[in-house]
C-alpha cells in the first residue's frame, strides 16, 4: 500500500517538477483562462448601441417627427432621417442596419381609428443585429400605444401598429446555422491547418529532418511553399466536406458562387500554414504547439465576427479584430454565402487575406532558419 503511494507521489513530484521548470506552460495554465475570460466579459459588457436605423415619415406627419425620433433614440437606436426611396440603397451600402418606413397614409389611418402598417427593412445578414433591432422596435412601439405613459405621441392609437418586416438579405429561410456556416467553414480550416502545420513542422525539427532539408538544395521559401501545398490539398478537401455537409445535411441556405468560397478558403489555408510554421519556431514540443490555441485561435473565434459582428464591438476590440485574418475571411464568406455578393464586393477582404498570407510566409521562411 505504502509502496504504491510512494510510486504515486514520485510520479506526482516528477510532474510538478516538469511543470515548475516550464514557465510557458505555467503562464498558459494561469494566464490564458484570465485572458479568454476577460475578453468574453468585455465583449458581453460592450454596449451594442451602434444599431443604425433610418427613419422615414410622410411629410404630412412632419409635426410628429421630433417625438418619434426621440422615442427611437430613447431605445438606444442611432437614428438618421431618410427618404423612403433611398432606404434600399443605404442598406445595401451598409450605411444603415435597418430602415423604419411609416406609410404615406399614416395620419388618415390614425384618424379613421385603423391600425397603421409600419414597414421595417432589415439588412439581414447579421442575426444578432436583426434581433437587436426587433427588440428595440418592439419596445418603441409598445411605448407608442395608448396604454403607455407616453400616450399623446400618437393620439388615440387604437392598437399597436403592425410591423411588416422585410429582409434585404437572409431572412426567414436563413436559420442561425445558415448565418454561422460561412464562419464555421473558414474557422475549421484555419484551426486544423494552423495546428497541423505547426505540429508537423515541430516534428520536422525534433526528428532532425529539418536539418536535412536545410542542407539540401531546398530554399527556405521552398520549404514553406512545399508545406503550404501539402496542406492545401487536405484543407481544400476538408472545406468541400464541410460545405457539402452544411448544404445537404444541415440544409443551410446559401447564395453566391462556391468558387468564390473556395478562393477565400484557399487564402485562409495559405495564411494558416504560414502562421503555423512561423509560430512552431517558438515551441519546443508538440504540447507547446497546442498551447497556441488559446492565444491564436480563441481570440479569432471571439472577435473574428463568428458570434458578434465587428460593428457591435467596442473600438479597442474592433481594432484587434482588424489585425486578424479570420475577420476578413468571415466577412468575405458572409458576403458571398448570405448576401450572394460577388468579387466586386469582397475584393478588399481578399486583398487583406493575401496580405496576411504574404506576411506569414515571409515570417515562416525567416523562422525556418533558426530551427536547425
Amino acid at each position: 500500500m505504502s509502496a504504491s503511494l510512494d510510486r504515486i507521489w514520485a510520479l506526482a513530484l516528477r510532474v510538478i517538477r516538469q511543470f515548475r521548470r516550464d514557465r510557458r506552460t505555467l503562464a498558459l495554465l494561469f494566464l490564458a483562462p484570465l485572458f479568454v475570460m476577460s475578453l468574453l466579459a468585455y465583449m458581453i459588457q460592450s454596449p451594442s448601441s451602434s444599431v443604425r436605423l433610418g427613419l422615414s415619415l410622410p411629410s404630412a406627419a412632419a409635426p410628429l417627427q421630433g417625438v418619434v425620433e426621440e422615442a427611437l433614440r430613447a431605445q438606444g437606436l442611432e437614428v438618421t432621417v431618410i427618404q423612403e426611396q433611398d432606404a434600399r440603397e443605404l442598406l445595401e451600402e451598409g450605411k444603415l442596419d435597418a430602415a423604419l418606413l411609416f406609410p404615406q397614409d399614416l395620419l388618415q389611418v390614425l384618424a379613421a381609428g385603423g391600425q397603421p402598417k409600419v414597414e421595417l427593412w432589415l439588412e439581414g445578414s447579421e442575426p444578432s443585429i436583426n434581433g437587436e433591432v426587433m427588440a428595440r422596435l418592439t419596445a418603441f412601439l409598445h411605448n407608442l400605444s395608448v396604454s403607455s405613459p407616453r400616450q399623446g405621441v400618437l393620439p388615440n392609437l387604437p392598437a399597436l401598429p403592425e410591423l411588416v418586416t422585410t429582409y434585404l438579405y437572409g431572412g426567414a429561410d436563413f436559420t442561425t446555422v445558415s448565418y454561422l456556416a460561412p464562419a464555421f467553414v473558414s474557422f475549421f480550416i484555419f484551426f486544423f491547418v494552423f495546428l497541423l502545420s505547426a505540429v508537423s513542422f515541430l516534428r520536422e525539427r525534433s526528428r532532425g529532418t529539418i536539418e536535412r532539408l536545410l542542407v539540401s538544395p531546398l530554399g527556405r521559401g521552398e520549404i514553406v511553399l512545399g508545406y503550404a501545398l501539402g496542406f492545401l490539398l487536405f484543407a481544400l478537401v476538408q472545406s468541400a466536406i464541410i460545405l457539402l455537409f452544411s448544404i445537404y445535411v444541415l440544409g443551410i441556405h446559401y447564395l453566391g458562387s462556391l468558387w468564390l468560397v473556395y478562393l477565400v478558403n484557399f487564402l485562409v489555408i495559405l495564411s494558416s500554414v504560414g502562421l503555423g510554421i512561423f509560430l512552431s519556431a517558438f515551441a519546443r514540443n508538440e504540447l507547446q504547439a497546442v498551447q497556441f490555441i488559446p492565444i491564436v485561435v480563441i481570440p479569432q473565434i471571439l472577435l473574428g465576427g463568428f458570434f458578434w459582428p465587428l460593428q457591435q464591438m467596442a473600438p479597442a476590440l474592433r481594432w484587434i479584430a482588424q489585425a486578424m485574418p479570420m475577420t476578413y475571411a468571415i466577412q468575405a464568406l458572409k458576403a458571398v454565402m448570405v448576401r450572394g455578393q460577388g468579387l466586386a464586393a469582397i475584393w478588399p477582404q481578399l486583398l487583406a487575406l493575401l496580405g496576411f498570407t504574404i506576411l506569414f510566409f515571409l515570417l515562416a521562411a525567416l523562422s525556418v532558419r533558426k530551427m536547425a
Partner: protein
Amino acid sequence: MNDEVVRVEELTKDFGALRALDRLSLTIPRGTIYGLVGPNGSGKSTLIKILTGLLRPTSGQATLFGQTAGTISIRRRIGYMPQLEGLYLDLTVEENLQFFASVYGLKGADQRVRTEEALSLVELTARRGSKGEELSGGLRQRLSLACALLHRPELLLLDEPTVGVDPELRQTFWEAFTRMAGEGTTLIISTHYLEEASRCRRLAMLRDGQLLVEESPARILESTGEASLEEAFLRLGKEGRRVGLA
C-alpha cells in the same frame, strides 16, 4: 588550390557563454577521409553543422569549394548525415530514399538506380517496404547514411555514422568510404570510436572546442610515441598540446 575542398580559418563558435569551437583552422584536400575525433561535447557536430551551413560561425571562416559554407549553389555537392537520425518514421525505407532523391532533383530511372544502389550498399534491400518506425536503431542509422549519399555528393559530412551499427556492417561501411574516397569523394567523418579513426587519412582531435592535433594517424602515433590512438589522445589531452597545425 583546386584540390582543396574545405578550408576553415580561425573558426570560432560561441553558444552564449560557451565556446564550442575555439579558433579552429584546417584544410581538407579532395579525396580525403578526414576524421573528427573527440569526446562528447568536444565540438565535432558543431564543426560539421557550420560546414553544412546549418550554423553560422561567431567569427572566422569556413569555405567549401571556395565558397562560404551554406551557399545555395554548393548544396547539391554535399551530403549530410545528421547525428539525429533525420528520417520520416511514417514513411517506408524506400519512400524516405525517394523523398530525398527528389529533393536533390533525381527523377525517373536515375532515381530508381540510385535508390537501388543506396539500398544495397547499406544492405536494406530486403527491408525496403518497412516503415521507419519499425526499424531498430542500427537499421535507421543505415537508412540515414543511404539518404546522405544517394545523390553522389562530392563532399560527405557524416556525423557519427557508425553508432549502433554492428561490427560486420561497420566494416562494409568503411570499405565503401574508402572506395568513394578513391573515386575522389571527400569524406568528413566524426566518431568517438578511435579504432576506426585509424582508417582516416587525416585526423583532427578535438577537445573542448580546441584542436589538439591535426595529422595522419601514423604521424600522431609516431610523435606521441604511443601504441594506440586512444592512448595518444589521452596523452595529448593531458598535455593540452597543440601540434601539427599548418
